[in-house]
């Protein structure tokens, strides 16, 4: 079936999402949204197999709760793309705001550039569900705050540090944050500790590096040096057990 093109100029997100859902229900597999500007909740809760191109700057909570679709954004994303998403993929050809992948429980997000504060906050995993957030440049403070599962990978393509702000992995109790180029230990948050990658870890990371390179048409070779990467993991399964009064 051919592509459905929607001109989103001046359209509120409610009718826009209604049109997207109706198209998906009718079996449309490719949707192209033109002139998107600030519409929140695009593809919110959409299930199924559909590819959605977003041209412009979508509003916050892009792809929230969605399960299955693939969204490709040609522009920057605002706050919390992939909020609590369940399955599918979001690829951003640009940068993104705060709380990217907020509470994500499955699926993948690839951001070509940098992201704001609290990326990957409270990402989680369960059995086969393992969310992934890959960032091309860098992330701001409190990356992976309260993280409970999944993988965050930062490639530091811009030449500076992947993270140079406080609270990295603050309160992390599951999952992993993998950083190319390491991190100054002063930025490690409470409950986070740095470890080296095992062979198994590297295999997983290398696969994601190549996937990132494929999405954005870059040569993966400069990012394939295992000794450049470190891994941030929980210091223990219950880092804050001693904080609770009843224990």
């Amino acid at each position: 079936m051919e592509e459905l093109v929607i001109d989103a100029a001046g359209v509120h997100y409610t009718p826009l999402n209604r049109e997207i859902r109706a198209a998906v229900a009718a079996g449309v597999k490719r949707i192209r949204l033109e002139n998107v500007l600030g519409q929140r909740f695009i593809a919110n809760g959409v299930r199924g197999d559909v590819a959605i191109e977003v041209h412009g700057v979508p509003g916050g909570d892009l792809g929230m709760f969605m399960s299955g679709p693939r969204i490709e954004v040609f522009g920057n994303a605002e706050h919390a793309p992939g909020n609590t998403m369940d399955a599918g993929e979001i690829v951003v050809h640009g940068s993104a705001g705060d709380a990217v992948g907020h509470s994500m429980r499955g699926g993948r997000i690839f951001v070509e550039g940098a992201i704001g504060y609290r990326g990957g906050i409270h990402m989680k995993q369960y059995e086969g569900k393992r969310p992934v957030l890959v960032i091309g440049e860098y992330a701001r403070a409190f990356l992976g705050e309260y993280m409970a599962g999944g993988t965050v990978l930062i490639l530091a393509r811009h030449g500076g540090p992947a993270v140079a702000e406080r609270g990295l992995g603050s309160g992390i109790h599951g999952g992993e944050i993998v950083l190319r180029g390491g991190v100054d230990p002063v930025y490690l948050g409470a409950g986070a500790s740095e470890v080296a990658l095992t062979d198994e870890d590297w295999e997983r990371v290398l696969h994601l590096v190549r996937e990132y390179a494929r999405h954005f048409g870059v040569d993966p070779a400069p990012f394939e040096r295992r000794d450049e990467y470190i891994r941030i993991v929980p210091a223990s399964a219950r880092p804050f057990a001693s904080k609770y009064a009843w224990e």
Partner: protein
Amino acid sequence: MCGIIGVIDRGRETMDGTAIRRALSMMNERGSGEGAGYVAYGCYPEFKDYFALHVFFDNIHETKPRVDELLHEWGRVVHDEEIPTWDLPRLRKVHTPWRYFFKPDTRLMPRSITPAEEIVTEIVMRINTSVEGALVFSSGRNLGVFKAAGWPEEVADFYRIEDYEGHCWLAHNRYPTNTPGWWGGAHPFNLLDWSVVHNGEITSYGTNRRYIESFGYRCTMFTDTEVVAYLVDLLVRRHALPEELAVTALAPPFWDEIDAMADGRRRLHQALRLTYGSAMMNGPFAIVVANQDSMVAFTDRSKLRPLVGAENGDRLYVSSEEAAIRAMDPGITRVFMPRAGEPIIGRVVA
């Protein structure tokens, strides 16, 4: 959750209110229709040497004579009129907005280094605390705050915001949380040259309010943002701190960050925290403050509220959302996010 946006043209070229109205309405989701407002700098060029006092009157016949009397006691009113408004079906005109163009008699405040400002501050505080049914919500030279309880477009249309020109604008869409929405509680908050818009809440309000009231300011608008306008006036106008240091005093680095600084810088930051401990603002916030010559935007040091900046030539924009800036100016060339607690500052050069 509120929506904020600001723009300054560093070459003092003016813009009418059409674009900022459009930008603010992009963030309607951030408000609840209980408060919106705009401030335009440079909007009264014909009266630029006079203080433009914007007043909400509950009842013109009973309360206005008391305000008139106070103004005549302290100076001269060259012109006053009802601020033109247009009836809208969904915006109930519960107050009558009025404007005075006022010149204080500086001989009445002989020992002050800024006598005109002292007189106007005294008048604002006195009206707002003792004249029931009157509230001064804008008191600077060549600027005007236009605000009411309503959605951004309604408030803009009510004042016909497109009829005003300014080289710097701030706008705000309110989602009241801790106090009810009302006309006086809408943003921007203004005192003299300074205006403030704010997203978030200032959990240190009690401490800040006690501190600022010890300098003679009186909080009358039942909301935390008011205190920011007075703190900026105190630190920048009365204590003559540079804007960067004032922001550092209000949103300082954490102690562990100060401890890691080089010696001279560390002592400066320690001195600021010790001197202005009671001015320090806690809680989640993104704030934009402006005066005739500059616009400063900053967030709390844990970055609990969004803030992005963008540029296009002489124009500097700040907002809660990038899309709002793009709605105002599709030609922006650089979009950036400031670090928590670090200000974005735009100054006019012309």
